Each structure stands twice: as structure tokens, then as C-alpha cells.
């Protein structure tokens, strides 16, 4: 299984160059956001607005954007409450495998009404009882708090790269995908073409922008700013094949430690299961991808859809031309008669 990009896609060709990538291991991430800041520092990106976001735990960045190329997601994972646990166990015992009751969302707090709150001035003695009941019966317990530093995936099958009409997006000798700011005219097509919601057009500047995997640093043999800053090496950088080997070993090591939900997102998959032909920046996760805002499966939308859509479109167009001509001929023939 090859993680190589097709040679024809590589725009910058240099002898001896090899694919470089990121391996982001969420099991050692401490959610400090050093990567976000180090990225902004090196790339001289502006702050992206100071909005207090609800429901996102400590995430006030929200998404990757034209001015934010690393973004740390926070997931407050809840374990089921004792009551739910019992219900689930009972269900399993009855043989209703897989149909385990849903665990409430981390962001979704129980509403005031649901918990029987009467607004502001509840007397202390009232409180104790209600709390006690809620505690033991319905309250889910905080289980794990997960952090994941998201970034451009530098896909093998890159949607943005396929979409770009100006050649502003190119694949480099490191098989990363970068946007050349001196070329981009801000057509915006790359934005919906990215299956990971990475690239964005800056509302002030008008051009699109995203992670370059620090192309300028790579040229001088420097590690990308985020990977360098990461205090716990949650973000690792290196030759892609080596990284994938390390990461696979990590998954096995975690399985041996009993963390059986650990898996790689974007590398090490069987060919028919690859995400966008494998990701240049891949992740080690312990929860389903959707918890981190990642799709379970993805590919370059153009590679996936454009051939068939073009075919049906053109076929329909041919039909339309034929139909138009036919109608016209029929009408005129009828008129002549």
C-alpha cells in the first residue's frame, strides 16, 4: 500500500525529497494550545476574534480558519451514570446486544427544566435533596477529557488541491499541500472542497489560507513550529513512512496497556479503507472520529464525484441539445405541413 502522491501532482521537484508529515497522538496531548500560538507566531497570523464559546469546553477557537492553522479540540467525554450503566447491563443481559442507551452529550447540558430547577433563589435545604437524587440517579460522571490538535491533513487525495483553478494550491517536494499567497485570487472553491473543513478564505484579506506544514522552515531543515513547540510531543514530525511505523507501534502498545479503543486516523488502513488516500497529517484517537469533528470516511470530493457528475451533466446536455433541435425541427416541419 503506497502513501505516495502521484508524481504528476508534485509541483516542486527536488532530488532526494521525501514525504514529511505530522503524527498527532491525542493520548499525550495536554490541551495547552502551544501549537496554536507557535503557529501564529511563526506564520505571523493575527488573532481570530475573542469569542467565548459555549459547550466547547476550553475551546474558544472553534474551528480552523484562514488565521488559525492549528486548533485544539476539547472533548468532555462522559461515562454513563450508575443508573444508565445498570440499564445497559440489564439490556445486555437480556441479549439486546448493541442497543445500549445513549450517553448524554458533553456539550449538551441537561436543561434547567429537566433538572427541576426553579431558577435563582432556591433555598439550601431544598437543594440538598434534589441534588442527592440527581447525583445518584441521573447524573453522568465526567469520564475523560480529551484534547486533539487539529490541523490540515495534507491529504494524498487533496480536495482543495484538486479544486484550485489558479494553481495557487500546489503539492511540494515534501508531498505537502501548500497555498501560494501570491497566486490565490480568492475564488473560494477550495473551501467546500475540503472534506475536513480546513481551508478558509480570510474575510478581510480575500485570499484563502491554511497550514503549509511550515514549508519555509522545512526548506531550511527546521521542524514545523507547532511540532517544535509541543511540550509533550503529542505532535510529532518526520519522514512520513517512519512516522507511520512509529504510530502503528504506538497503537499496539496502547492496546497492550488496555486502551483498546486506540486507532490511527488517516494512516495504516487497508487500501479500500484509506481516508483521502492516507493523510500526511494523521492522528491517534481513542474515540470515534466524529467526537473530534472528523468524518469517518473522506476522499477528495472532486476525485469522488467530478467524473460521474460531469458524465451525467454532459449526457444531459447532449440530450438537451438534441431535444431542443428535435423540438424545433418537429415544430417547423409541422408548420410547413
Amino acid at each position, binding site marked *: 500500500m503506497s502513501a505516495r502522491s502521484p508524481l504528476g501532482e508534485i*509541483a516542486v521537484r527536488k532530488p532526494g525529497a521525501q514525504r514529511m508529515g505530522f503524527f498527532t497522538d491525542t493520548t499525550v496531548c495536554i490541551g495547552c494550545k502551544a501549537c496554536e*500560538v507557535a503557529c501564529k*507566531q511563526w506564520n505571523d497570523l493575527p488573532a481570530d476574534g475573542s469569542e467565548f464559546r459555549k459547550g466547547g469546553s476550553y475551546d474558544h477557537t472553534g474551528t480552523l480558519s484562514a488565521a488559525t492553522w492549528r486548533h485544539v479540540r476539547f472533548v468532555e467525554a462522559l461515562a454513563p451514570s450508575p443508573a444508565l450503566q445498570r440499564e445497559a447491563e440489564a439490556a445486555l443481559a437480556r441479549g439486546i446486544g448493541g442497543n445500549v442507551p445513549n450517553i448524554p452529550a458533553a456539550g449538551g447540558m441537561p436543561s434547567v427544566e429537566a433538572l427541576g430547577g426553579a431558577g435563582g433563589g432556591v433555598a439550601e435545604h431544598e437543594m440538598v435533596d434534589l441534588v442527592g437524587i440527581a447525583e445518584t440517579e441521573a447524573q453522568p460522571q465526567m469520564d475523560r477529557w480529551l484534547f486533539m490538535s487539529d490541523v490540515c491533513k495534507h491529504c494524498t487525495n487533496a480536495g482543495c488541491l484538486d479544486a484550485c483553478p489558479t494553481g495557487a494550491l500546489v503539492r511540494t517536494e515534501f508531498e505537502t499541500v501548500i497555498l501560494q499567497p501570491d497566486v490565490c485570487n480568492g475564488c473560494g472553491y477550495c473551501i467546500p472542497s475540503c472534506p475536513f473543513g480546513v481551508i478558509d478564505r480570510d474575510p478581510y484579506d480575500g485570499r484563502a489560507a491554511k497550514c503549509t506544514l511550515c514549508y519555509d522552515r522545512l526548506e531550511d531543515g527546521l*521542524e514545523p513550529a507547532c511540532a*517544535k513547540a509541543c511540550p509533550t510531543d503529542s505532535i510529532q514530525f518526520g519522514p512520513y513512512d517512519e512516522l507511520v511505523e512509529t504510530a502503528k507501534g504506538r497503537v499496539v502498545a496502547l492496546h497492550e496497556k488496555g486502551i483498546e479503543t486506540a486507532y490511527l486516523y488517516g494512516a495504516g488502513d487497508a487500501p*479500500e479503507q484509506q481516508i483521502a488516500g492516507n493523510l500526511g497529517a494523521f492522528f491517534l484517537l481513542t474515540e470515534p472520529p466524529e467526537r473530534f469533528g472528523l468524518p469517518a470516511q473522506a476522499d477528495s470530493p472532486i476525485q469522488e464525484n467530478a*467524473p*460521474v457528475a460531469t458524465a451525467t451533466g454532459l449526457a444531459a446536455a447532449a440530450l438537451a441539445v438534441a431535444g431542443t433541435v428535435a423540438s424545433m425541427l418537429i415544430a417547423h416541419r409541422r408548420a410547413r405541413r
Partner: protein
Amino acid sequence: MGESHRPKGFKRLRGLPVVGRAADWGMGPHAVSKNTKTAGSRIAGLKATESVCPYCAVGCGQIVYTRDGELVDIEGNPNSPINQGTLCPKGSASRQLIQQPGRLTKVKYRRPGGTEWEELDLETAMDMIAERVIRAREDHWQTHDEHGWKVDRTMGFAHLGGATLDNEENYLIKKFFSAMGAVQIENQARI
């Protein structure tokens, strides 16, 4: 996983003789701009100075890259056994600390009862402060305290600060203010 998941269509297209090559048109070297061709790090060849992060007490090593006396970049020092090149978000932002918006470059002065800042010349300010310290020392000098104990000190002025200052600075603060007889010298270590 069904076969349908794979972009077989595109892969197959790419395999075709002419169409296949056309699939990669527009993506080769001619898409590369001049700037990209000459891309490189903005710190190559710059003066590098070794420093230490000013935030918490872990003491991470930093490298400061400057060009003609102007700050270009601060990043972690990979040689430091403490941080091995890494930095936390605050340390990573320390260039912005130096080049921060609203960085003071002039002495600001607020006169008694004043409603706005005024600007002062540094030397004037230093003279004014020296005069006030001397007066405060004299006005509140105690040879003995109210219990009759010999104290030889002034209670007229106090000092607070020091936890982010250099030890050399703290040393001069302690040495000089003690020589003046001041005892109310404190810092963050207690707060």
C-alpha cells in the same frame, strides 16, 4: 466496506493514456510561483541569542533571532535539557510580549488629582523619584520603634515586585533599599 467507497472512477481515469495525463495537467512545476521557488525560513543567517522564558518557573530555554537589532523570532532552545526546544503557549507568544500593542516607551506621569496621563522625560522622572524617596525616608525615619526597640529604619516607602525580575536586579533592590533603611520589601513569593 464496499467497493463503492473508492474513487475507482478517478483512479481508472488516471490510468488511461491521454486522459490520465490530462488529469494531472495544471499541477506540475509551472504552477509554482516565484516566491515559492525561493521560499526559506526568515531566520536563516540571523543572529541567535540564547535566553530563558519569562513566564513560569520551569525555566525553558529560548533562542532569540534578531536582524539588525530587531526581533524576528523567539522559539524554544533545542539544546536545553529542560524543554528540549518546546514551549508552552505563553512561551510561544513571548515575541508578542516584547512587541506587544501598547508597549510603553515613555515615562507616564499622573499628577495628584490628575485625570489623564502626561509624558515625562526619563531623567526628570528619575530625579523626581529620587527626591521623593529621600523625603519619604527622612519623614518616616525610626531610630527606635514605639516599644523602644532599636530599629534604624524608615517606614516611609515600600517595594513590591521581583518574581519576574533578574536576581541581579533583586540583589540591587535589596541592597540599596536596605541601605536606605527600608524594610517593607516584598514580592510575589508571598502572595
